[in-house]
């Protein structure tokens, strides 16, 4: 493994993904550096989630290569749960298991460890994402939206994966909860040395937590870089996205 490869957590080259006659991702290339938080923006239905799901391996690709931590993906060899954790938009917690069992699930399936240690690790993870030990015996149906996201994050981080995928982590949260969640992601990213790949529409998250932002339009990455570079981009869609009335207002407020 040479140094240039070592620098990237995810490398996507010439990726083509489509359904039927429709091509969603058209020769897309994207590099995610190790230890950065990359935000991905794009139109609704424009392929953001498709890109994330293709990298994870949930959607088959027509052509192109994807390397994760220097290893090409495709085969189902290495345990995926140890490479990445995924926070789905609705949490995707197992509704028949308690919060504790949800967090322990990846541990139980991938490792051999004593019940005592498993309990301690589960509580430790829950406390790291800002929940209390008392919440551990609740069922997902009893949780609020923000708590569901936190539990899902704890489950995604159960095995300390080097890469974390977040699908619209702050959608459905109130601004205070969303802000807290942003801070939490930033803190965890720093403590655990994570690489975070985040699909989001939340301009506040993009500005505050993301090191770089990638804009997806017409099936390609049309602009990538720190937020201030993207604001200066000349691409019509990127301009419309960041300089529309709504975005202008928000950015004005933020200043």
């Amino acid at each position, binding site marked *: 493994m040479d140094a240039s490869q070592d620098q990237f957590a995810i490398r996507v080259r010439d990726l083509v993904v489509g359904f039927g006659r429709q091509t969603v991702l058209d020769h897309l290339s994207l590099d995610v550096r190790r230890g950065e938080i990359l935000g991905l923006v794009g139109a609704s239905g424009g392929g953001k989630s498709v890109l994330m799901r293709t990298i994870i391996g949930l959607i088959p690709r027509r052509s192109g290569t994807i390397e994760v931590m220097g290893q090409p993906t495709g085969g189902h060899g290495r345990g995926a749960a*140890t490479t990445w954790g995924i926070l789905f938009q609705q949490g995707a917690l197992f*509704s*028949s298991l308690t919060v504790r069992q949800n967090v322990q699930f990846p*541990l139980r399936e991938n*490792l*051999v*460890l*004593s019940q005592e*240690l498993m309990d*301690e*690790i589960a*509580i*430790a*993870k829950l*406390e*790291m994402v800002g929940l*209390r*030990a*008392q919440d551990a015996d609740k*069922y*997902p*149906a009893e949780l609020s939206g923000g708590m569901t996201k936190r539990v899902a994050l704890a489950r995604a*981080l159960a*095995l*300390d994966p080097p890469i974390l995928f977040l699908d619209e982590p702050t959608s459905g949260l109130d601004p205070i909860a969303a802000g807290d969640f942003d801070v939490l992601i930033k803190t965890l990213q*720093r*403590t*655990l*040395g994570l690489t975070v790949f985040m699909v989001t529409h939340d301009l506040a998250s993009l500005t505050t937590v993301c090191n770089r932002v990638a804009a997806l339009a017409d099936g390609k990455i049309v602009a990538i870089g720190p937020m201030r570079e993207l604001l200066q981009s000349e691409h019509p869609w990127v301009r419309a996205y960041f300089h529309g009335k709504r975005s202008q207002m928000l950015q004005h407020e933020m200043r």
Partner: protein
Amino acid sequence: MNHEPLLLATPSGDVLNLRPEGPWTAANVVTLETLSRSVGADVDRSRVVTLDMSGVSALDTLGAWVLEKLSRRAASSGRPAQFVGVADHYSGLMEEVRQVNRHTPAPAAAPNPVLARLGDLGKSTVGAREDVAIFLQMLGALFMAVIGVLRRPRSLRLTSLVYQLYRIGWQAIPIVALITFLIGAIIAQQGFFHFRRFGAESYTVDMVGILVLRELGVLIVAIMVAGRSGSAYTAELGSMKMREEIDALSTMGLDPVDVLILPRVAALIIALPILTFIGSIAALYGGGLVAQFYGDMGPAIYIERLHEAISVTHFEVGILKAPFMALVIGIVACSEGLRVKGSAESLGRQTTTSVVKSIFLVIVLDGLFAVFFASIGM
């Protein structure tokens, strides 16, 4: 560079120097647990414990927690352990781990098994009362909805009613006819086989006719409809409840009973007698075929015997029960559907409950009808 985690313990007098080395990560958890257990006694014995972290090549939450646990074990007897040589990029993690698992709530005491059993019994008794209340409530709501429709016939959801009739009536005909046909044939075969021994073969036709028209036709059809359409109602209404569609209806000023439940229950009440009729005919036909090919009784004699054995009363007894069974199935299926809570598991549970409960009630109802018809001499 080694790939196995190590824990070097160097006791010198009262001082224990622990030096973890290698990758302290979740992948090596088995080794880590053994290592930390092996030095446990040494930690308890020593007065000063230091943890030299400079040899750790990789560290994650699990590894950090195992080390933190060792340090807490030392601290619990008043000799706080010291971490030295923590690499910069792991200091945040070590700091984080130091905060966790401080306030573990006391586990809830296991309840007395006898008391727990009694508690369950009490809960299910109260639950049964609640079930009756919900049933009566739904019956009342349906009654009010029917009165509303009688007052303003235009408010009947005709499209929905016809669609439900198509789904639970028309589409059910093939399977209902097939099953009842087989049941009729089996009863006839058993009749011929056993009655032949004492030369009473011709009474097989009486048995088949009376049994099918009075009891079996309607019972089999009702049970099949409960399994086929009752479960569908519960699942439909349950998922509509989960996705807040029913709340949306209410906020638009519409009564879910009028819009969703009345057409469904009405469709059942109309369809079940028709299906019972078709089912009974199919069963008699099945019996007739067996009579011809197994009992050596030609169609003409079979029909002749049938004509003598059964009367309109037998047919009435069977068909009169059908609408009531349909009402029970419909009410149970719809009210169970509305009891679905947020989770996928609850949807499955209510669907099962709906089918089990409606089949049970159909059979109980059939028993009550048997007593009733016997006492009025039908």
